[in-house]
């Protein structure tokens, strides 16, 4: 689980990748060529970013003949949020126990 989260956080650390992910979510299914048309980077660079997003599970690639189309898969972002929610719940419980102990 942790490795998957690390990949997600790493994938999202780059502003260009965040922009690409938003575009894929907006326009998907979309090809690297389609995305590169109005981004200030090459198709090859877009493909590399998409590969990182794909490895992190943030986008899903579908091959049709010679064409690869990408779609956003938001479930993994939700997983990253879930970690934060879990940790918050754990501290809520611990601090409630601490308070109850001090109130005795």
């Amino acid at each position, binding site marked *: 689980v942790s490795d998957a989260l690390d990949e997600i956080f790493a994938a999202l650390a780059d502003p260009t990748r965040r922009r690409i992910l938003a575009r894929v979510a907006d326009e998907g299914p979309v090809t690297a060529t389609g995305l590169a048309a109005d981004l200030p980077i090459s198709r090859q660079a877009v493909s590399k970013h998409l590969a990182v997003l794909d490895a992190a599970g943030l986008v899903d690639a579908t091959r049709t003949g010679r064409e690869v189309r990408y779609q956003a898969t938001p479930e993994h*972002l939700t997983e990253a949020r879930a970690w934060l929610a879990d940790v918050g719940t754990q501290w809520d419980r611990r601090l409630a126990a601490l308070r109850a102990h001090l109130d005795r």
Partner: protein
Amino acid sequence: MDDPELPDRPDTRADDRSVTRQIDVEVDPDELWRTIVDDEERAAWWGGDTELDLRPGGDGHATDPDGTIRRIRVDEVEPGRRLAYRWWTDDDASAVELVVLPRPDGSRLTVTETRAAHGALAPTLERGLLELELLVLCRVAV
């Protein structure tokens, strides 16, 4: 009158890798500090076996009621005021900071837990994973 269905307000202080919680209690800062750092005192409320060698570089562990055991390495200690440590399991690691401050009629404890980021990851990540998630979710939903 509080609506029982009303959800808690989201914690807006937490950035995308850290969670902050705070409680105000009526004991003085020294007692609050002792209750946290003294092994016997802490064991009385933590809910599981826990031990801490309270000095920088000191080792320890803490067991949650669900059986999760975290190993601890103390990073910084300002006696009576601040404790910073890292703790981890086989598949997760984070940094925790506990700060005790005096209040007019007691003291305040602030806890911040921050998920470990690999290497040089993430100064830019500090801005809004949540916003991006909402953006992506909204667009996919349409």
